[in-house]
């Protein structure tokens, strides 16, 4: 048993700190922890390129695909620190780094690897990806998706609608799941994964602003959009199983990202409480505030340990299933506690818009407060995650 980081990881932490201080504007508000979103797309792309030049962007990929062959632990530390500093552009859209690359490395054809991996690894905006899974009638019950990709000669013809498509408006490619066999005996058979060029004719993107007005989501409509057959990822009609793999890659980053970003927010809030006077003494001397901050420190440590434990399981050759759900759920609960508690500490100032001079703590508390309910739904609701844990870890009967 040993919980110390190695020299390599310590050096990496220092280098990322140096990089962040050098490359980010002094008044940088950070990316939203909730969606890693940056409102200045050009700046985001410029940072992707710099991360690529540093050799960090795809550090965990094998060297032949532009990576460094970095260890799981280095990758985890990198994700924590990028999130801590709020460095934008680290994910190449919603999915480029986290699951498109890893799944292509595992399942892609040589041609696909040659074409798409360098685009992602370079940090160029042509390497930005969105992901098309959810549909209006396929949320938690994802396998009931209806968007069709029917083969006609050397193309699939796509018809249907995706929704909650994060980042579709800036992505060059879509990692799309669609139904290739409408007559399959079970709904999760007959699905396939496809690479879709978002510039193809027949694709319409409609913004779907969230309740605080941010444009993160989109609806994406496919009207006879054509996709060449060589864009099929893995086997036709085996997409559901490939998707499980992709989700496993997606969930591995949840722990580190929340652990890093959350640690920063608690530090910033603690600093604010030291500097702010309330009723004649520093805010941080008020017992209730101290207790709240202490509770946040417990949460910081908990999600950090969960993230590292997940990473350790990977190094043991395990495919962590319930641990991914545990980390996602814990991250969500922690953000909820943080956002509501921090808003109480800020009092009336918690309402002030992030960019206004009345905002406190770089406006991040408001972002967390408005954003966490969305985060609790994305990539699996609490209800879905809890059911996974009950079934896969505790061996309880399937409930749905």
């Amino acid at each position, binding site marked *: 048993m*040993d919980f110390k980081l190695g020299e390599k990881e310590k050096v990496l932490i220092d280098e990322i700190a140096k990089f962040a201080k050098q490359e980010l504007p002094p008044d940088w508000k950070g990316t939203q922890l909730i969606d890693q979103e940056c409102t200045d797309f050009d700046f985001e792309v410029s940072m992707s390129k710099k991360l690529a030049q540093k050799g960090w962007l795809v550090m965990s990929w094998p060297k032949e695909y532009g990576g460094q062959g970095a260890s799981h632990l280095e990758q985890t530390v990198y994700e924590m620190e990028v999130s801590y500093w709020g460095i934008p552009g680290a994910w190449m859209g919603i999915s480029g780094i986290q699951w498109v690359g890893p799944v292509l490395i595992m399942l892609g054809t040589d041609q696909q690897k040659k074409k798409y991996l360098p685009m992602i690894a370079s940090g160029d905006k042509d390497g930005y990806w969105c992901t098309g899974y959810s549909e209006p009638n396929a949320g938690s019950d994802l396998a009931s998706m209806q968007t069709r990709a029917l083969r006609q000669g050397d193309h699939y013809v796509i018809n249907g609608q995706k929704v909650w498509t994060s980042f579709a408006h800036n992505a060059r490619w879509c990692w799309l799941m669609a139904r290739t066999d409408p007559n399959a005996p079970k709904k999760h058979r007959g699905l396939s994964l496809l690479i879709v060029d978002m510039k193809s004719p027949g694709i319409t993107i409609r913004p779907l602003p969230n309740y605080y007005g941010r444009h993160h989501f989109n609806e994406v409509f496919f009207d006879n959009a054509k996709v060449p057959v060589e864009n099929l990822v893995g086997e036709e009609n085996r997409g559901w199983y490939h998707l499980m793999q992709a989700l496993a890659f997606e969930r591995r980053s949840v722990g580190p990202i929340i652990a890093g970003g959350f640690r920063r927010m608690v530090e910033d809030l603690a600093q604010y409480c030291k500097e702010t006077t309330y009723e004649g003494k520093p805010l941080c001397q008020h017992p209730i505030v101290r*207790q709240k901050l202490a509770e946040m420190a417990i949460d910081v*440590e908990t999600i950090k340990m969960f993230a590292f434990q997940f990473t*350790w399981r990977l190094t043991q050759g395990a495919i962590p299933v319930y641990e991914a759900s545990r980390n996602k759920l*814990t991250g969500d609960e922690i953000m909820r506690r943080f956002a509501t508690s921090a808003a109480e500490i800020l009092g009336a100032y918690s309402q002030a818009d992030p960019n206004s001079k009345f905002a406190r703590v770089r406006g991040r508390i408001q972002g967390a407060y408005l954003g966490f309910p969305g985060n609790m739904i994305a990539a699996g609701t609490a209800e879905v995650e809890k059911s996974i844990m*009950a079934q896969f870890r505790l*061996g309880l009967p399937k409930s749905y």
Partner: protein
Amino acid sequence: MDFGFSEQQEMLRTMARDFLAKECPKAKVRELDKDELGYSPKMWSNMAELGWQGLVFPEEYSGTEASFVDLLVLMEEMGRNITPGPFFSTVALCALPLLKFGTKKQKAEYLPDIANGKAIWTFAFTEQSASYKPSELTLSATIEGDDYILNGEKLFVADAHIANYLLVVARTAKSKNPEDGVTFFVVDSKAPGLKIERIPTMAGDRQFQVVFNKVKVPKINILGTLNKGWEIVNFTLQRAAALKCAEISGACQAVLDMTSAYAKERIQFDRPIGTFQAVQHKLADMLIDVEAIQYLLYQAACSIADGEPSQLQISIAKAKASEAYQNICIDGITAHGAIGFTYDHDIGLYYRRVRAAEFAAGNVDMHKEIIAVEMGL
């Protein structure tokens, strides 16, 4: 980074689990609940034969030089089994500070007897306010020739009725900083003027009021340095908090296991209740808390074993564990339904121990305040 226990530690765990299952089944726990002594002297000496009390002592004091993490493994199993007895008082609260701060002579005199199961010790710290703050220490020790005379009262002292010695924290000088003027004394439990009265508790464990009426203690029985005892308090409470966490960790795992098993076998509406998401989700919440306690605790324990500053990690683990233990028991009982509320069901044995566990080595609020201080607030 390595979240795994060593092979040796896994062996120790298996050995402890087997031993406790055999020597201390729940029927025995209930029997000891009503027993006059509240522990089994035979089990105590069997533990000593396995080397448990002296696990972390050097060989010269009849120990096996195991690490703090090994001791944690042992205490997790005792917590899982809710083994009644003076192990925590003797080893966690007294033997560890004796080992660290005792003179060669003191160590040679006291530690082998602990390791061999001949001596039981307890720690007397809290008083009327039941607080661990230095300002609340008022039991006085005044010098008279070669002796100190102790006057005052200690409360919630565990196992005082069977202890051969008490490690008593007394005030030897008044000063502006209440941390100064604190001194540790080794007190023979048979010393004249020492009177104990049991505090009946919900757990059925043995806690006492100990009154010191002109109790004479030889000067040579000071542990550490006169007036500089607060350092020993910190040392002791840190380790005790981590080891109490280990007991909590084992207890929580046991409650989760029994609740999960019950959810699979209890049939209502023609199916196991574990099929219902309302029950599943309760169990998932319990699972998350169990794992949080474990990893926070293991991190703190490794830090202690490595001799690094560990206060923050210990307080985080203890605050989390104390709160979660309570929640896990309540969720566990309610998932069981009415059967969980009965005397005959084991789950109540765990719930009844929550309050003592929370109080031991500092309650939730105290540790949250320590965390705040450690954060620089």
